[in-house]
């Protein structure tokens, strides 16, 4: 996994409910639900912490998963969320998410 930086889009609204997160993209009225694992990544998406560091430091620490599997799943998640426009991804650090 090359270093990627992820940040939450400012065009959405998100609320943590229990261990999950619900997100709405106001422009399209689309609603997304993140499970507990995805919520950990979402909350850590500050634009300056590399995705690999998020996975190794937070995901692998909290869940029983190998770094390889976790990185692959995280990349897949980031691709999905980026496709929906609710997460920004870059090879360079991004402006810190609010």
């Amino acid at each position, binding site marked *: 996994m090359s270093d990627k930086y992820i940040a939450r889009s400012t065009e959405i609204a998100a609320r943590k409910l229990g261990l999950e997160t619900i997100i709405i993209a106001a422009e399209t009225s689309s609603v997304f*639900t*993140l499970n507990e694992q995805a919520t950990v990544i979402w909350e850590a998406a500050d634009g300056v912490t590399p995705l690999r560091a998020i996975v190794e430091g937070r995901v692998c620490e909290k869940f029983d998963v190998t770094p390889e599997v976790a990185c692959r799943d995280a990349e897949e998640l980031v691709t999905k969320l980026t496709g929906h426009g609710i997460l920004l991804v870059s090879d360079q650090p991004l402006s810190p998410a609010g």
Partner: protein
Amino acid sequence: MRPNVGAARFGSAPVSPLGSGSLPCKCAVPDGVLPSCSSRAEPGRVEWGVLASHEMVVEIGGIPIRLLTRDPCFRKLLEDRYSGFVGSDSSKGATLEVDLVPAGRVTEADDVTVRLEDRKWVIERNDFHATWDPRSRRGAVRQSPNPYSIDSTLRIVHTLLLSEEGGFLLHAASGIRNGTAFLFSGLSGAGKTTLSRLAPADVTLLTDEISYVRQERSGYRAYGTPFAGELAKVGENVSARVGALYFLAQGIENRIEAVGPAEAARRLLRNILFFAKDPSLVNSLFDSACRFVRRVPAYRLTFYPDERVWDLIR
């Protein structure tokens, strides 16, 4: 471990046609012709001066809306349609002025559309055109003399009013039992009317179609509405604190399962009446839904359509 995202679409835009049927004014005339009434000029004569304005107050969910019309026959129709929800205090609250036109297409919009123009909401469908100013809480609607158009306008105006205070209209039947209100939510075909029809005598039915929910300091309150569904029965004009929200599904047995807050919010958003694409309104309703599921327990109610399902609702 598998981080996952589920996607859905928020809101159910169409205003469903009333199943309750019209309550025609006794002096109504065939489609295409304005009702004859005392405020209009007799044939062959020109009536000068200001036409009389007839008003009535429709109070749903404790929110009065004054309806103004120049036509006493239409006012009579409204009194019949909203019987049980006619208020008396016209000094405060919102105002809608109704301008009647002959039956036929009023606009080209087949589906209801709601948009902001110059800080006013424009609401239209092929049978009506309405504007609503949220600051002055005044609006105007142009429509033919039928109850369906004004009903749709009222639903949307109430949605806009409720969004300012954390409430919403919900595709849900609701009823009061032992002093507590229960909401039974689902889109068309989920069983709202069936469950309402099976309600025992000690249940006060608030609606079989559109539930009216307002936020209170310590929770939420559900109100009766005149927005009837297939049961064609206007709800009782009473209210109670909301005790639980049930998402309906029909099955071979009666079963209740708890629904987590995120799932509940997602399902709730799917069933909230929602018309406008305006981002601030979307965010407002999103917040309302999230607050609601934090404070009101939500369940999935699978039921076999007989009266025993009500044994579970206490």
